[in-house]
């Protein structure tokens, strides 16, 4: 953060004895509140036997392990295929939106607006339940991938466009002055700079895409969450739903954090070299991109 942000100690004078006592009281009260919440959660877990070895021992067996790994691979597969397709679609739509010709601009605009506004789950429903009624045979995998592709393609298109727009106008003006053509300006001047600026934000969006593969659970795609649900019915392990859900959640959190960490690392690294004149689009979803489906 350049120049530093507002921190508490600029806002008021150094607290005197009474203010210090009050702050300490608030601190203690707050900590007690947090301790009470955590304590209640642990108590509920303990009370209902979630810490019993029997429930957790399902993780020691080979078949359940294999099922979880298969589920995770299915998740990664859907995310990988959808990511490639979404980036391609996004590039196409962004090219359309940046075009000088209305014939390309208008339909790309409508497409992007439409698919960003439709809930992703409904897109998956459309491919899973709707398409067969129209005579197209679709698998759950196809429904998940196509839904993710359309939604994220539309979101990425806006991101790409913002990236190209963020390159200062002088860059393209200078390139035109040198006698370059439209395509040449885009390919050799604007894009190389824009991509550097966009990369962290793109990776953030791909993290969202990875998380959204879990929606596949609702259209019977056999991914990680489906494996968790499947295994949690095991009576011989006293229905280990809570332990398995925690493990499944841990896998998602670890994967997403790894990707987010990579995005942050990239942002720092790309920020170091002065090879782009475009301001960096942050990896942090809340900060820079007001638009988009980063939630």
């Amino acid at each position, binding site marked *: *953060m350049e*120049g530093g*942000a*507002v*921190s*508490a100690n*600029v*806002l*008021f004078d150094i607290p005197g004895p009474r203010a210090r006592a009050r*702050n300490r009281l*608030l*601190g203690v009260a707050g*900590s007690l509140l*947090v301790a009470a919440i*955590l304590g209640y959660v642990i108590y*509920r*877990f303990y009370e*209902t036997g*979630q810490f019993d070895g029997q429930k957790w021992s399902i993780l020691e067996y080979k078949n359940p392990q294999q099922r979880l790994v298969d589920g995770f691979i299915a998740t990664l597969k859907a995310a990988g295929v959808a990511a490639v397709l979404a980036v391609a679609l996004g590039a196409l739509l962004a090219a359309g939106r940046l075009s000088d010709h209305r014939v390309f601009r208008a339909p790309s605009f409508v497409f992007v*607006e439409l698919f*960003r*506004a*439709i*809930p*992703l*789950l*409904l897109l998956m*429903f*459309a491919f899973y*339940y709707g398409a067969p*009624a*129209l005579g197209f045979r679709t698998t759950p995998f196809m429904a998940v991938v196509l839904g993710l592709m359309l939604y994220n393609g539309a979101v990425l298109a806006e991101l790409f466009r913002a990236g190209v727009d963020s390159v200062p106008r002088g860059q393209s003006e200078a390139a035109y002055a040198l006698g370059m053509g439209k395509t040449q300006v885009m390919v050799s001047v604007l894009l190389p700079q824009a991509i550097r600026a966009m990369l962290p934000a793109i990776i953030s969006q791909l993290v969202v895409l990875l*998380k*959204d593969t*879990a*929606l596949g*659970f*609702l259209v019977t795609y056999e991914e990680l*969450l489906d494996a*968790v*649900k499947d295994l949690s019915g095991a009576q011989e392990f006293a229905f280990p*739903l*809570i332990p398995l*859900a925690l493990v*499944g*959640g841990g896998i*998602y*959190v670890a994967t*997403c*954090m790894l990707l987010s960490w990579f995005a942050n690392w990239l942002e720092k690294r790309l920020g170091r070299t002065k090879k782009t004149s475009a301001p960096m689009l942050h990896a*942090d*979803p*809340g*900060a820079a*991109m*007001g*638009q988009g*489906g*980063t*939630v």
Partner: protein
Amino acid sequence: MTDFLPTLTDNWDLFLDSFWQTILLFVVSGVISLLAGTLLAAFRVSPVPALRAFGTGYVGLLRNTPLTLVFFFVVFGFPYLEINLSFFAFAIVALSSYTAAFVCEAVRSGFNTVPAGQAEAARAIGLTFSQTLNLVILPQAVRAVVPPLSSIMIALAKNTTIAAGFSVAEAASIRANLSELGYPVVSGLIWVVIGFLIIVLPLSWGQRNLERRWKVAR
């Protein structure tokens, strides 16, 4: 496609009831997540380490978990913990605990966009704490916080559809009900999509308008 219009007109009650559930889910969990998210943001900047750690942990955990998994944990897991509520209440819990993490981050990073010099200058000319906050910091912070917050709320409106997968009779569940009644799936889905477009598009246009106006004013 001759059944297209009757699919809607024969089932007015179903559509209205379901979309009413959607709007109810959206408004209730929107309000709860705004309050909880702001509290969490306060935790994250507080001088008490325990509160900061809790805030950081909560946000890191919830933001990196798919909402479907949060729903799964709440709807199927809570009964195992002997916490039994209605499906609607479960959906509220899942949606607001997930969204609160994003609200927290938007509020926090919005406040961080106000340069420290602003507060220092305000203090230097003798403004009190509340004057500094009300006249200098908050007016600037709000401009940075509201646009991302409205994006989060728009996403929440779309995320309510997941509740349909967990036994709440909201708009995305219309499809299942209609196909039970023998109406064509595709027409039903198209009407539901149109319903969502009516809710989401004005919100996102309003949001963009707000963002553009405030960016100029900054």
